[in-house]
């Protein structure tokens, strides 16, 4: 298998080098929809659908190719022989092949180089080539196999340094030949060290621009694509979910007044997201990061006629902008920390090799964490995410659940060495990231309890689950975090689209308490797919969420038997801390672990509440519907156009449901089929990363274990920290599942008793909260969302736009301008004075003219009132023209 990988690396698959086509297709689609969409029979949606189909096909092909390179089935003990063959081949071509690394097998299937000198030496000798400098000496050296050719590395180093001696003209000639349309700087990085490698990134770069010419501060900024397991994983997720959302939307948004715009933005979003995912440089990452933010802005505010929607859009964008301060500064710090480069692979390499100093890494990681807090809804910058539900539901599923909001998590993974080393504060060994994640996961879970709007429950649930991912990454459980991102995308998209289907049936309301109840009888397909999604979210085996959640809890290495054998958190090789291990074994992550367990219970409980309120009891939506306020306002005009549009293509009796008092009904097939596909994914994707013990116990082929890990987590590339993996534990799995089941039973019992009393009821009138003041207080805090919104919009935003801005403007008008006007008025007085006493008194040519000039300036200001300024303007023009003429022709 590894032989295959090695061969494949030497002739990089076409798709990996040309992966830029994937984001380019939806970008083109966006432009086409904007240009001609409205004139087409399906109003532009056909372009969107065609483009997403192409993206889907290419992504699947890329995924297949990637998986094929690494192997569909694994089993490292058998593979190691082949792996050796691969190594041998390399050592023939490569002088550095000697000095075989001591490979430590911590857990089955994991191998990493320990921090001995030879590996460090290697990483030092191999900076990732820069597309801006690589081709200056070697001309059109297309696709230089970087890792195999040590000479070319030296050449590149030389070409960088020789720039300084080259004459300016030669360097400048180089600049002009480099352009986007000439990807001659294309280079492929395929690390091939003397030890087992897996999942090397394939980078195809071209020079974006250069700065500093041939000076000592020269730096070349490249743009291109980086293909590795992580980006392939996201490619897979984005293309599938975006594709399903496109199909779903053709029904759900049908008849909307901005149907064409909607599809244009979906295409733009897909393009921006894929662009970001495939970024090879941090600068490019920033571009993609903000572009997805804009699409989110546009889609949240899709129904911008109503102020609450545009408010929500603004809030989302501005909150993210606050986080972006951290993004910009963090990337800047990294740029300088890594000796002026934006290349992700190079930054990672330097971080792993310990070439960036700890302070730079820590500051950068902290700053970037702010960006992650805003984009991925971590406490305390999560408040925009629930408000973002003002957008159409398919958008919530795609952007605000499955893809865009995980951008922050994705970035942690993308720059994992930076975060990993950056947050390892020597001595304290407290990982801030795990703590933020833990706080978010519990805080979000609690808020999900008090919502009446089904989408808001799901939104807070997303916040909570994103916290889970960050928690995992903070504990060093990289694969667990990424795996949870992967599984969460499917089941949360399934839930959001399910909620959309429900509201489609219930007069476009999302209010569980007043408009839902008993829906399982009316819409069985939606009910069952929603149940599967819920089960996956709760972590019920064998659904997807179970596997990923379990892995995260295992990753804390707190539960007895889960800790890896490595002692201590740090490897101190004498040159500073590096290759820091998780060190969970010493109980560092006890608090995050407890947070994780609480969330497991909370998730099960609030989702049971949703299920009970929505699908059980009696249907409560039969009454009048004029009073549900703005909650569903955004969907009403979609609904208005909806009815007539539906008659033509669906025969499922939409109309009665839209009429008041009608019973709900199942949605059309373009809604239910995506639901079923997602439910299917939510049930099976968990099997991609089964622990080997489980695989053995079931008697399955050993190669089926932890496939996801092998595909996504790179090993031995020199660009990824060596993480030790926790050991799975059956008892922990049983414990966590038990927690969930108990919560389900308790909450279910509560509602069963309630419904037995009154099937239309949604809460006890004499509930616990009304009896115990502390509980009531807690309830109030939750109802007010921890008062964060009051702080942000009331105190901070209000203070800035109100008193602060007014004060600044007052200074402007009264002090700064006051000075100017005073000077002007003084000029007038002076002018009058001079005019009266000098000009009129002493007739002297020189004095006369200077007095006139001063007088003029004064009289002009007075002329504002008197209205005679035009006469003076003529005079003024004449005088100045004379001066200019004198200057120009005074030979």
């Amino acid at each position, binding site marked *: 298998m590894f032989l295959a990988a090695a061969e494949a690396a030497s002739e990089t698959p076409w798709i990996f080098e040309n992966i830029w086509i994937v984001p380019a297709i939806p970008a083109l689609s966006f432009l086409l929809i904007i240009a001609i969409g409205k004139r087409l029979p399906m109003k532009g949606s056909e372009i969107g659908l065609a483009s997403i189909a192409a993206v889907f096909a290419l992504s699947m092909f890329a995924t297949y190719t990637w998986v094929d390179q690494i192997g569909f089935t694994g089993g490292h003990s058998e593979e190691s022989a082949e792996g050796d063959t691969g190594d041998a081949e390399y050592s023939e071509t490569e002088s550095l092949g000697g000095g075989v690394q001591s490979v430590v097998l911590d857990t089955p299937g994991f191998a990493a180089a320990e921090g001995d000198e030879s590996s460090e030496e290697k990483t030092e000798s191999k900076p990732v080539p820069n597309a801006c400098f690589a081709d200056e000496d070697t001309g059109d050296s297309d696709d230089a196999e970087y890792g195999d050719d040590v000479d070319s590395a030296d050449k590149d180093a030389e070409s960088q340094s020789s720039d300084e001696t080259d004459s*300016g*003209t030669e*360097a*400048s000639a180089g*600049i*002009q030949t480099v*352009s*986007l349309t000439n990807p001659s700087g294309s280079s492929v990085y395929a690390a091939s060290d003397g030890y087992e490698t897996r999942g090397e990134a394939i980078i195809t770069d071209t*020079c974006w*621009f*250069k*700065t*500093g*010419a041939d000076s000592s*501060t020269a*730096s070349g900024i490249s743009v291109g694509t980086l293909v590795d397991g992580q980006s392939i994983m996201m490619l897979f997720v984005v293309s599938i979910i975006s594709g399903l959302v496109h199909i779903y939307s053709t029904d759900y948004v049908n008849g909307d007044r901005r149907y064409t715009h909607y599809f244009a933005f979906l295409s733009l979003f897909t393009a921006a997201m894929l662009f970001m995912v495939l970024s090879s440089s941090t600068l490019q990452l*920033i*571009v993609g*990061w903000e*572009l997805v933010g*804009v699409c989110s*802005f546009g889609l949240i*505010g899709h129904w*911008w*006629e109503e*102020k609450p929607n*545009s*408010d929500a859009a*603004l809030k989302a964008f*501005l909150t993210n*902008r606050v986080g*972006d*301060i951290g993004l*910009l*500064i963090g990337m*800047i710090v990294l740029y*300088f920390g890594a000796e002026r480069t934006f290349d992700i692979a190079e930054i990672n390499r330097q971080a792993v090799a310990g070439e960036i100093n700890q302070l730079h890494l820590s500051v950068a990681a902290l700053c970037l964490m702010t960006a992650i807090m805003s984009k991925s809804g971590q406490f305390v910058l999560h408040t925009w995410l629930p408000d973002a539900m003002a957008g159409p539901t398919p958008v919530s599923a795609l952007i605000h659940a499955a893809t865009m909001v995980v951008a922050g998590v994705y970035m942690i993974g993308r720059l994992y060495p930076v975060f990993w080393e950056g947050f390892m504060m020597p001595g304290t060994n407290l990982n801030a990231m795990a703590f933020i994640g833990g706080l978010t996961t519990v805080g979000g879970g609690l808020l999900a309890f008090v919502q009446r709007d089904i989408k808001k429950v799901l939104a807070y649930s997303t916040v909570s689950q994103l916290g889970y991912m960050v928690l995992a990454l903070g504990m060093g459980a990289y694969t667990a975090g990424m795996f949870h991102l992967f599984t969460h995308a499917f089941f949360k998209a399934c839930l959001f689209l399910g909620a959309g289907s429900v509201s489609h049936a219930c007069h476009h309301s999302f209010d569980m308490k007043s408009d839902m109840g008993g829906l399982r009888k009316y819409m069985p397909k939606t009910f069952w797919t929603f149940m599967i999604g819920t089960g996956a979210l709760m972590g019920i085996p064998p659904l997807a969420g179970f596997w990923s959640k379990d892995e995260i809890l295992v990753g804390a290495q707190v539960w007895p038997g889960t800790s890896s054998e490595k002692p201590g958190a740090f490897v101190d090789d004498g040159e500073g801390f590096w290759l820091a291990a998780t060190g969970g074994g010493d109980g560092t992550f006890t608090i995050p672990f407890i947070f994780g367990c609480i969330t497991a219970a909370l998730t099960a409980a609030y989702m049971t509440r949703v299920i009970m309120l929505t699908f059980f009891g009696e249907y409560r939506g039969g009454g009048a519907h004029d009073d549900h306020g703005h909650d569903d306002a955004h969907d009403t005009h979609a609904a208005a156009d909806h009815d007539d549009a539906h008659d033509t293509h669906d025969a499922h009796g939409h109309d009665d449901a839209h009429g008041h008092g009608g019973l709900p009904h199942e949605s059309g097939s373009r809604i239910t089929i995506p639901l079923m596909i997602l439910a299917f994914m939510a049930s099976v994707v968990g099997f991609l990363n089964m622990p080997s013990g489980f695989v053995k116990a079931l008697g399955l082929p050993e190669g089926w274990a932890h496939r996801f890990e092998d595909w996504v987590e790179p090993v031995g590339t020199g660009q990824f920290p060596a993480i030790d993996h926790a050991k799975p534990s059956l008892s922990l799995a049983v414990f966590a599942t038990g927690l969930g089941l108990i919560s389900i039973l308790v909450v279910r019992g509560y509602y069963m008793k309630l419904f037995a009393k009154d099937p239309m009821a949604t809460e006890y009138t004499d509930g616990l909260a009304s009896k115990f003041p502390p509980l009531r207080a807690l309830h109030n805090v939750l109802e007010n969302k921890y008062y964060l919104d009051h702080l942000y919009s009331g105190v901070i*935003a209000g203070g*800035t*736009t109100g008193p*602060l*801005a*007014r004060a*600044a403007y007052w200074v*402007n008008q009264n002090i*700064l301008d006051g000075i*100017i006007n005073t000077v*002007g008025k003084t000029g007038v007085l002076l002018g009058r004075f001079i005019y009266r006493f000098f000009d009129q008194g002493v007739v002297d040519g020189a004095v006369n003219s200077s007095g006139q000039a001063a007088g003029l300036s004064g009289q*002009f*200001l007075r*002329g*504002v009132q008197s209205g005679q*300024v*035009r006469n003076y*303007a003529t005079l003024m023009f004449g005088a*100045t*023209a004379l001066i*200019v003429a004198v*200057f120009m022709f005074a*030979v």
Partner: protein
Amino acid sequence: MTEFLNEWGITIMVFLPLLGVAAMMLIPKEAEGSHKAIALGTALVTGGFGAWLLTKFDDLSVEELAALNETGNVPLYESRQWIPTIKASFDVAIDGMSLPLIALTLLVTPLVIIYSLNHIPKPGNAKMFLILMLVLHTGMLGTFVAQDLVLFFVFFEVVLLPMYFMIGVWGGPDRLYASIKFFLYTLFGSALMLVSFLALFAQTGQETFNLVGLAEAVASGDIPLGTQVLIFGGMFMGFGIKVPMFPFHTWLPDAHTQAPTQGSVILAAVLLKLGTYGFIRIALPILPDAAVEWAPWIGGLAVIGIIYGALGCLAQTDMKRLIAFSSVAHMGYVMLGIATLTDFGINAAIFGMVAHGLITGMLFFIAGSIKDRYHTLEIKRLGGLLVQAPRLGWILGLCTMASLGLPGLAGFWGEFPAILAAYQPAEPLSEELFRVYMVIAAIGTVLAAAYLLWLLQRTAFGTPSDEFKDDPEIVDVKLTEWISWVPLLILILVLGFVPGLIFDITDSSAVEALKNIGVK
């Protein structure tokens, strides 16, 4: 022919617009059609000729051009006698630093004239209006190509007059106050600048006003640092007021608000750049040591301007005034980039100038079109633009996004690299201080997003008020608007994704301008 154009090309480009002026002088003012045709034709010919000239750019610095010119005429460099008695010569050149700005001028002027074809502001008189526009064109081009201090000064001042009249005659209700404020304020700065130029001439004692010659003279001479700092101070006043830098910006909101649309566009797109261009063309290369002394102060004023301008925007109730105030903030980024005295910073500054010219120019165009339709720019009364004129609304949306520095659009490349450069300013400057500036500037990006999106929300989103609901005058983008906007919009997009188009041109000039920084 080539020889002739090498010798006269730049001069022809600069004075071509005056040819049009001469022709228009002879035609009575009633013949508006022929005035418009001549003005547009002149601007287009100038643009075409200039564009052809710019293709001869070969990434050579002025110094190299001058050296090559010794042996025979080279393109993009001309030197001839002008006023020998005061040692002023007619030295003009185009290098990487001026090229983007010349290109911007060559592009914007015809577009503004196209827009004017059916938008001559009250009280009419297309003849005078367009003549002034062409005179302005010559002034702007001349300032960007001048390589001699006297020549630079003359062109710098030539620009002032047409703009003064444009505001004073064709402006809004408060035009007289605004125009005189603009004129006197700038003239005040220019006076100090002229004193500095003369002092420089006297101090170097080399009997030349040539920029390269002066730079060499200062580098090899022994002018006391204190004197240099004073001379720089005079230039700072001249250029700083023009930029405008906080606290000398108060003329700008008035001038912008009162100026006719075309005036605002030219003012924002090109005139503000004369100041920043002066810094990087004259002040930094000639007085590198004084620049080091001044840089922390300039940087400080720049970041104050960023925050202050943004706060000023948040307090505005008039759309045009808001856009005007945003210029104070945006030029703050440009000045911050310059103050770092690094190549990245200067590159960012030049990019920022071009981007600001395109974007803010567009915003003023849009404001003008909204004013045409609604007859007001009071934000409170607007709203629902997207309902009534969807294309205009989306263009406004795109431009606000570009203006707030969205990556992928042109504005980002002026802003982010300037912030980046502040992390590590040139050697002699204080890193700590500039890192504080960096953080403040980064915070400014949030405020920029706040005031621009708030503007977008209040004008474009929502539903139209009863006042304008059925107003037949409110129509979508018209043909002349499309023609004059599309090039700008395309550039905003293209530069956003291919920033190398500008960076690769400016880079070596930026390095060249900084070669004497920190040498002593």
